[in-house]
């Protein structure tokens, strides 16, 4: 019976398991895997209980509606209402409560400080010497290490969530919350803000790239370096447009005059996998589209739409930003 139900649950959940980089049903971190088991146990249990209660109801009202004894009825209240749930729920608590400890543990890996802004993510990797490497809207993690995430928010409450790697935690102004992930296989997983945070709450996502430890070390070393100077003529002109339009008063491109702190750090923008906090790709047309139509693509965002730029300027800017590898 139970096996059939598990199979049935499997059939129900299977189509979901195959797809989706933002799914609890596609776990890839230690905590998410444990959670998946817990969820499966509870689902099967819930289904069985629902069928039992529903079946009992149908039995007493339809299949066998004749009068039954009072003792039986009172026994049902005592057994079904008290004894059975007390044991079952007690067992569930004992099983599940200890499961919440792991995601709060510090772990042996690095610490990453993530601050939520409206509507993007400021990401800072803490190096062993205490210095920080700043990035944005993308999280990179090594496989097999428990990495600690120190979460903060600026202005309003957000929530940090990568379903494939673990649970979520709120990001609250004036408070620090903590979460840790232990990814078990390399891949790219999507995360999204889960606590309503204003007009563009729906458009506040990011990619988590889980890498083999040596790849990660190489990436982090590259990320710590200053920006690559423009390589092509087009890109050089883009850098000029960038400076002329005052982009540097909000954005930082390390190694240049641009040191603004209001918006996301763009030092290695070209090497990221998404744009605009997980809502666009990183092809040159995506850059041009984003810069010209920011306010349409992301309502009420702080950055204005640069729709006065000529197509040539936009192309040049896209080449510059795409070249920031």
């Amino acid at each position: 019976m139970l096996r059939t139900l598990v199979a049935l649950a499997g059939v129900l959940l299977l189509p979901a398991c195959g797809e989706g980089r933002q799914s609890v049903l596609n776990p890839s971190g230690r905590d998410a895997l444990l959670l998946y088991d817990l969820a499966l146990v509870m689902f099967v249990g819930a289904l069985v209980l629902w069928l039992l209660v529903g079946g009992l109801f149908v039995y007493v009202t339809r299949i066998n509606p004749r009068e039954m004894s009072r003792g039986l009825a009172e026994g049902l209240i005592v057994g079904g209402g008290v004894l059975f749930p007390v044991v079952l729920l007690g067992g569930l608590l004992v099983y599940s409560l200890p499961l919440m400890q792991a995601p709060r543990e510090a772990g042996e890996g690095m610490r990453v400080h993530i601050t939520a802004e409206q509507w993007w993510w400021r990401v800072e990797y803490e190096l062993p010497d205490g210095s920080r490497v700043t990035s944005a809207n993308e999280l990179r993690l090594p496989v097999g290490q428990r990495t600690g995430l120190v979460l903060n928010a600026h202005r309003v409450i957000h929530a940090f969530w990568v379903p494939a790697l673990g649970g979520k935690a709120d990001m609250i102004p004036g408070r620090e919350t903590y979460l840790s992930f232990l990814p078990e296989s390399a891949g790219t997983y999507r995360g999204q803000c889960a606590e309503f945070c204003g007009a563009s709450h729906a458009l506040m996502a990011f990619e988590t790239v889980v890498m083999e430890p040596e790849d990660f070390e190489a990436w982090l070393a590259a990320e710590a370096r200053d920006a690559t100077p423009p390589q092509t003529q087009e890109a050089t002109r883009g850098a000029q447009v960038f400076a002329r339009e005052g982009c540097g008063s909000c954005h930082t491109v390390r190694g240049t005059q641009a040191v603004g702190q209001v918006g996301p750090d763009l030092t290695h923008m070209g090497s990221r996998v998404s744009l605009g906090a997980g809502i666009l790709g990183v092809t040159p047309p995506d850059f041009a589209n984003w810069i010209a139509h920011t306010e349409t693509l992301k309502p009420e965002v702080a950055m204005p739409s640069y729709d006065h730029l000529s197509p040539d300027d936009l192309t040049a800017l896209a080449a510059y930003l795409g070249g920031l590898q």
Partner: protein
Amino acid sequence: MTRPAPLPVAEGPYPPTEEMLNAPVPPEEQERGKAELRAAWKTPEGWRYFSAVNNTEVGVWYALTAFGFMLLAGLLALAMRVQLAFPGMTFLDADRFNQFFTMHGSAMMFLFAVPMFEAISILLLPAFLGARDMPFPRLSAYGYWCFLIGGCFVLGSLLFDAGPKAGWFMYPPLATEEEGVGPDIWLLGLSFIEVASIAAAVELIVGALKCRPPGMRVNIMPLYAWYVMVVGGMILFAFPPLIAGDFLFELQRSFDWPFFDPERGGDPILWQHLFWIFGHPEVYIVFLPSIAIAAMIVPTVARRPIVGYSWIVLSAVGTGFLSFGLWVHHMFTTGLPQMSLAFFSAASEAVVIPTGIQLFAFIATLMVGRVRMSLPMLWIAGALAIFVAGGLTGVMLAIVPFNWAAHDTYFVVAHLHYTLFGGMVFPVIAGVYYFYPFFAKKLLSERLGRWSFWLIFTGFNVTFLPMHLTGLMGMPRRVFTYPESSGWGTLNLVSTIGAFVVAAGFAVFVYDLLRPKSRQGQIPRNPWDAGTLEFSHDVPEEAWGVRSVPYITSRYPLWDQPKLVERMDAGRYYLPDAPDHQRETVVTSVIDAKPIYVQRVTGPAWITIWAAIFTGGAFIFPTFHIYKPAIVCGAFAIVCVLYWLWTSTARPPRDEMREAGLGLRLPTYTSGPDAVGWWGMWITMLGDATAFASIVFGFFFYWTARPDFLPAGTDHAIGTWVAAAALLGVLAWAATLLAREVNRRGNVMLARLALGLAPLSAAAAAATAWLAVRDLDPVSHVYPAILWALMVWLVVHLCAGIVMQCYCLAGSLFGKVTPRHDADLRNVTLYWHFMALKVLVTAALLGLVPGWLP
């Protein structure tokens, strides 16, 4: 000076014997009684109809209004479902979508679910209890008009594109920083309705405790009355924390006092605590009365008394308590210590047990009976199927690690709609089908009813069952759009289709409800063969409710007391006439329902509408930061309420005793704990004390949660003035108490003197409390701000206390309060007992506690 004679008490034979009950009532007596009652209870006609206050009128208006608001909120949901049908839709923009989901949740909770409970209870409770009306009919009418004005104001904001858009739980800082008047509309509009809800709760508790028919002891009262008592109590302890939160929130919005601003020592988490201390019991406040409807329907369907009456009482009371230990399960992701989370996880699992007992008691009743599957029972069956599913996902969500995954996703959206449709919407619709013959004296269509059931039931599951999966596949709630790559498109489209099927079902239901039924003819008086008193009402309808108030000895009097209806109709029981042409109902003792006195019940009036309009002004003007007209409106509202109290409550009667029938003579006036007014005051004060306690909780919350509380080198309140305020406040209390005591002993002059001094002392207390904190700057940090908030709260209550003392003084001067008729004075003294407590606690927090804190 002679001590005045005590007030008379009930005299005569009680309980009635079979012989007395068998004695026939002469026909001319019967006719006289009928004519008198008909005159006294006549519903006003024409445009005066809206001055009616009778529970059958106000209850129906209330229910229809709440239902109308629900349909509007449902339309908002349909618009949102269209927007989400496909990825990247542009049917609604982000701003409008956010206004819609905020309003959908707020309206369903504050304008439908809770008011619907109040509406149904106002409509039905007196009938279940064989009472003629609620104890304070004008209060229900006032509550209704407040609700109507507030509801139209809040919902109307959408038409001006000015609606709140931070979600129905209005988390700061998002909501405190939001521009425009949206959050103010939400806060003030809904505070206004919360006040009306508390008023209704007070009335319902007093109704269930004191207005039962003679003989209906606590062990045989209808289960619905037990639930009303529990839910009323829950409202009393759950709504005030939200009102306190609203108070702090609006102080921040209007005057920039930084309660939720972390930069200046505030903390946004405090709001979450206060909101969910309200918000979780709220779920049960909505669920319990609806399940109470099931508790009335199930025995009728099974044709057997309920099995496990005591078990259901246990489950109602137990759920009432446990539901206050669940609130943090809405905050599992806020980073509280694991152990704290686990307490709430455990309590959330514990509450499953009483809820389960409740459902098993219904199944047990169906087991011992021979079930007749009527239309109401079909809806109850649907409710059971849906609610059990919602309960089981609730068990999952209470498990912390699972909650970390499912929180704020569509899984939660699915869960909460399963609990609310199963726990509220379906049972309420079952109740509409079951009680329609009672309040409309017509029957609804069996065929249309089945159509609407299957449409809503199927549509509901098509809409919400896939959402469990959508949520686990990563879709957060409250998103106005989603990318195609997410893979959520198909499931969302299915949900949208389902939502339109639900809408079709509701359309059928509304049509059935409103279509003309004049050709139906006269229906039977008790069409379901129910056993409880509401189906003893006359068909065609008579406004008097019960022809005479029966003597009850069974849980199902219509089944077990054979000649009951016949005797009621003959006017054999109590209050079969109205010799003074006044509306009256019997007030009985709390436990054994022994008759105590006859309560004069108020009749039609316009003053309630005026009071509601001015109260509305006092709440609505500040939304737009217009304060002077608001103050004027507030003053007029107070004048209206005072006028209504002065002219129609606790007037010394012309005849002190009244022949109540069956040889019993009952007094027409009483004061102190026997009187319903005293209970009303006592219960209101419990709620008020809870709100005050919530602000005190805020003070200690800041202390535990914030390292910069108290800020280094801060100024404190001035000790001398604090001490003076405490002393003067206590003096005002002592003077009030003295006035009550000497007045009772007949020394009217001394009582008047004390009542003259008391308000002066209270006013001085208010002034010194203000002086104590005057030099602190509430904008600079949360510490001075919370001291100011405590001071403001205290001063407002002192002012109310002063008005009451002056009311009693005027009463004494103009003959409304005499040594024997001192109900007003006793109620006001009760207010001042609580006032003294508030004065002392506030003084301790202002003057002593900051020095003690490490």
